[in-house]
């Protein structure tokens, strides 16, 4: 009987074997003194084969260096050590279900604690926790929160951003453009005679038009900072940071053309046989001062001009600078 063997108590043995945690006790030379049922279950190594063996050779693959260093540090400095799952994943060849999945190593968190008994004999306690459930749970929570975050910003029908996202982003981007003195444009666009389309073809068909229009618009709005959002029923908004009146006007014309090219029949339209859109653009020159509400009003006014002029076209207002909300701006 080695002198280092700790005195055992039947109840403490019962408890140690019932733990949902791997428990290994080493003597000061790294010899295994205790190997609980959890360890047997997840390592496939019986207590008889483990007790009295060197921890460094008990596993066929040996111990990873990080664990060897940790054990060594615990022995030398008598301070407890932690091996986190994040930095080590699965240091020991342990398996959640050895019979069914003999290749799936369990995700582990290990803590190693020095123990000293009444007569001054030193031991080393290794605790292995299965972290796969907590990792799975956290991953699930993260997936869910990602989905919620997406649902909170995306319009579920068209896949464009929603109004809420637009409101936040518009203010933030406008503020940034003014601070950094860069140009900025906002587009509002409307599907022409959309109510008549719905009345003629039905709402499901109307929904398909909304989806098709958004796809077509997205194919033309390529810069990552640009934001296409569904502003209302058949009304959309495009935030164009770092884009002046010429650029945004040219883009708006391309967007109009893109929708014409879709050739979606619209027999009820008063201006065409196909689905068309009208676009109002409001642009700010670098250094101009304008608040979000006013720029939005200008874009809306511009859209109204495009509609009044016969629809399927673009109207734009350049440099919506204002300190006075009633100032007149030039429509081009």
């Amino acid at each position, binding site marked *: 009987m080695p002198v280092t063997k700790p005195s055992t108590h039947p109840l403490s043995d019962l408890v140690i074997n019932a733990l949902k945690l791997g428990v290994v006790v080493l003597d000061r030379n790294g010899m295994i003194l205790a190997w609980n049922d959890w360890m047997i279950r997840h390592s496939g190594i019986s207590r008889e084969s483990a007790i009295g063996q060197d921890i460094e050779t008990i596993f066929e693959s040996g111990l990873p260096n990080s664990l060897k260093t940790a054990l060594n540090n615990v022995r030398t400095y008598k301070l*407890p050590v*932690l091996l986190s799952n*994040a*930095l080590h994943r699965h240091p020991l060849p342990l398996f959640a279900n050895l019979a069914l999945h003999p290749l799936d190593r369990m995700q582990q968190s290990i803590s190693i604690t020095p123990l000293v008994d009444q007569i001054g004999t030193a031991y080393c306690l290794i605790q292995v926790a299965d972290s796969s459930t907590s990792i799975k749970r956290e991953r699930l929570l*993260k997936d869910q929160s990602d989905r919620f975050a997406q649902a909170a910003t995306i319009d579920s029908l068209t896949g464009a951003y929603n109004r809420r996202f637009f409101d936040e982003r518009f203010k933030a981007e406008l503020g940034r453009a003014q601070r950094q003195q860069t140009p900025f444009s906002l587009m509002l666009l409307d599907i022409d005679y959309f109510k008549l389309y719905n009345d003629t073809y039905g709402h499901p068909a109307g929904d398909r038009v909304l989806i098709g229009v958004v796809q077509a618009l997205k194919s033309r709005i390529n810069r990552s900072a640009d934001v296409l959002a569904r502003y209302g029923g058949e009304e959309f908004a495009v935030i164009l940071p770092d884009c002046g009146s010429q650029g945004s006007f040219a883009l708006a014309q391309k967007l109009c053309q893109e929708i014409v090219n879709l050739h979606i029949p619209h027999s009820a339209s008063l201006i065409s046989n196909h689905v068309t859109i009208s676009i109002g653009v409001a642009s700010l020159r670098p250094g101009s001062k304008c608040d979000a509400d006013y720029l939005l009003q200008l874009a809306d006014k511009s859209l109204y001009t495009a509609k009044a002029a016969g629809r399927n076209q673009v109207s734009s207002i350049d440099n919506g600078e204002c300190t006075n909300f009633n100032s007149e701006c030039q429509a081009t």
Partner: protein
Amino acid sequence: MIDFSTDQLDALAEVFNIGAGRAASSLSEIVDSDVKLSVPRVEFFKSSEINASALNLTSDRIGAVRQHFSGSIEAEVMLLFTEERALNIVREMMGSDASIEELAEYEQEAMCELGNIILNACISAIADILGVTLDTTLPIYSVDSTELILSQIVSDAGQPVMLVLHINMTIEKHDSQGNLAFILSSTSLKELIVHIDRHIQGM
């Protein structure tokens, strides 16, 4: 209040740099690349003098890894990083391809391990070089407002002295700064000084 001589502070910095060297080699092994760790400066504060700017913690939230040490010197030891830096360090340790979001779930445990390595290394260096025996608990990590964490330090009237190590850490060419704060009772501080003086005389 206790005044430290330059010799004493230098001797302490030297002891802690030995600890930092040990921690760096453990960390290098884990991240499989060169980790550098140094303690350029050691300072003493009264608890009442502690605030965010004294510790150069320019962030609303900080992460703290805490261990309690007992033995001939009794101390509450904390490794303090701004929350953002803590996340960056963990990211660098895990490899640059992991995103910050992905890290959130592991952050706590990984920071505990990092803190444990640095704290243990510094403590074992003190124990070795100054010839004292020290015991410790497993680390606890918490992230909270800078104000709250610092107020916990300051409110502990039984531990009126704080020894602050400024730590520079470089992982894969990225530099980070943190602090290691030893919160000591005046008795423990006196004990520490006795041991340092003995060490200086023995040199």
